[in-house]
């Protein structure tokens, strides 16, 4: 990574870095959180929890996941990996949730 250069020139590249990172934290984080909520809700419902209980615990875990990946997106060095994990992970979890639903309903 070209850390020293990025800091020495607070230029367009640094600005792009910041914008991409903030977008990863906000939008990528949301996709990841949605996936967490959906998967946790569907799995807990499959485990015979009441739907609204499952929904509540799903939202709870999703919010905690959102905060965690938000901090990680800002802090970690490799931006590309952030995007890959957040979008890939979020979509995979959402797909898994739909799969669980198709088994139950």
């Amino acid at each position: 990574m070209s850390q020293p250069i990025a800091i020495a020139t607070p230029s367009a590249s640094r600005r792009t870095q910041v914008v991409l990172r903030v977008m990863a934290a906000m939008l990528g984080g949301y996709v990841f959180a949605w996936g967490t909520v959906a998967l946790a809700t569907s799995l807990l419902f499959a485990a015979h929890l009441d739907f609204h209980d499952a929904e509540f615990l799903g939202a709870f875990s999703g919010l905690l996941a959102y905060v965690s990946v938000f901090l990680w997106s800002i802090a970690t060095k490799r931006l590309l990996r952030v995007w890959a994990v957040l979008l890939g992970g979020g979509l995979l979890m959402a797909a898994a949730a739909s799969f669980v639903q198709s088994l139950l309903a």
Partner: protein
Amino acid sequence: MFNSFRQAMAWLHTWFGLVLGFVLMAAFFFGALSVFDREFDRWAIPVTRIEAQPMPSFEKVLRPAFERMQPTREAIDAMRPRVNGQMPATFDKVVSWSAYTTHRDPVLALYAGYEVPNAKDPEEAIWAYATIDPRDGSVLPDDRLKIGSGFFFPLHYGLTLDWKNLGIWIVGFSALVMLAALISGVVMHRKVFREFFTFRPGKARLRSVLDLHNLTGVVALPFHFFFALTGLLIFAGTYYFPVGHTQLHDLHDLHEQTEAQETGLPHKRAGVPAGLASVDAMVADAQRRWHDADKAGDVGFLVLQHVGDANGYVSVYRAGTDRIALVGDGIHYKAATGELIREDPTATPVARMAEFLTGLHLQHFRHWLLRWLYVLGGLAGAVCIATGFVFFVEKRKRQHALQGSQGARVVDALAVTTVTGMVLATLGILIANRLLPEALPGRGDWERYAFWGTWALALVHAGWRSAAVARGLPNPAWREQTWAIAVLAIVAVLLNWATTGDHLLHTLSTGYWPVAGVDLSLLATAVIATVAARRLGQRARATQPKRTSEEAAHV
């Protein structure tokens, strides 16, 4: 992008805190005011200044009031495009009648939903609303702006930006970032401590500002964390992550089918007319059952479903005044006979946790000390963010002055607007509420305009007076707006006296705390503002000679 985790956290804390701090400031401040939303309502609508009342008798008060209700002309016109053919002159098939009150409400809110013949969506009902005096059932004006529950409260969670729920999303994202800022603040705390307390010049003022920032942030840390989290949880299922209505809709349907079977509460009308047994007897029975289960017996919510039909049932819900958890403990009766259909089962452990967390945020309990602690917690949050702004500006303004940058100046002007300007806007709506003619059409809208207009004036004033910041000096707008707060707070109290006759001696001697409390808080605001303005004035005079000598040195 950053060399260390701590550096990254400091960046996040500074910049997200700055940008979203303006939103959080409003969420904290109006959240603190919303703790006493019903009391602001009484202050703003003098005709409702009566003692809080329990749910009245259905047979004597509610039934005649419900039977008088009909949808307004506006509601009928709004419904027209969603109906095939003509709208009827009156609506007589009642989907539901319901009444809602809390232990702080002297007035009772009534809701009536009616079936609409030939509606394109047969499930869609048309609604009528009324506010009544529960002592005699007389109808109170429903078009007055409830400044507490109808304006400060929506500001708290959605900035009153209703378009596509944009405000709710902005506040929600800010709450998320607040959680991140709290964590990042804890991570950076020791480093900040070492850096700024030991090395920076002009540390005296920075130290006091940072002290206050850390104090209000750390002392109330559990409060801030839980309120951001529970606030997000309350809206998560409906707005932020509505998986049950979208992606997992099928699972939700599955759950509703099994639930309807379990509860035995009919979803639809039977089409067979039926009478109505004594609802007061059902309520008395519900209260006896709560009492036997060692729970307080105030009715919070009373619902009659499918009125006049054999499938009709009556649900009696408890007002959770005796615990933090937001509970319903509903008991359901067959409307025609009054026989018990079902008692809501004991909540599951997860549901109890959800009830506790939402109740913790929404505070339906009856406990005045705890209520005031909520206000203090909210105000501590506001102070934490305000000092964060001041710290941001103080740390940079001399450097910016040397570089000729306007950054600190702009942030400072926005900070003035958000801190003192927000208090001014609040006083502006209260004063407009007392000054506008009673019969003014769209009175509530004018009150809102007064709020936003005052706030806009505060912004213009803060910007106009901000030039000093670009020279490394304090913005005199801080002091001037603080004086304005002191004056307007007293004006609001005097106007309340002049327009209603309810001066403090009267409200205090009769023990009418909703209005006395608002007036006393306004006076306390005036005292604090006066002290603060005088301090700011002393400091301005102290820096005055220094400035001239500095300027002389530059020349």
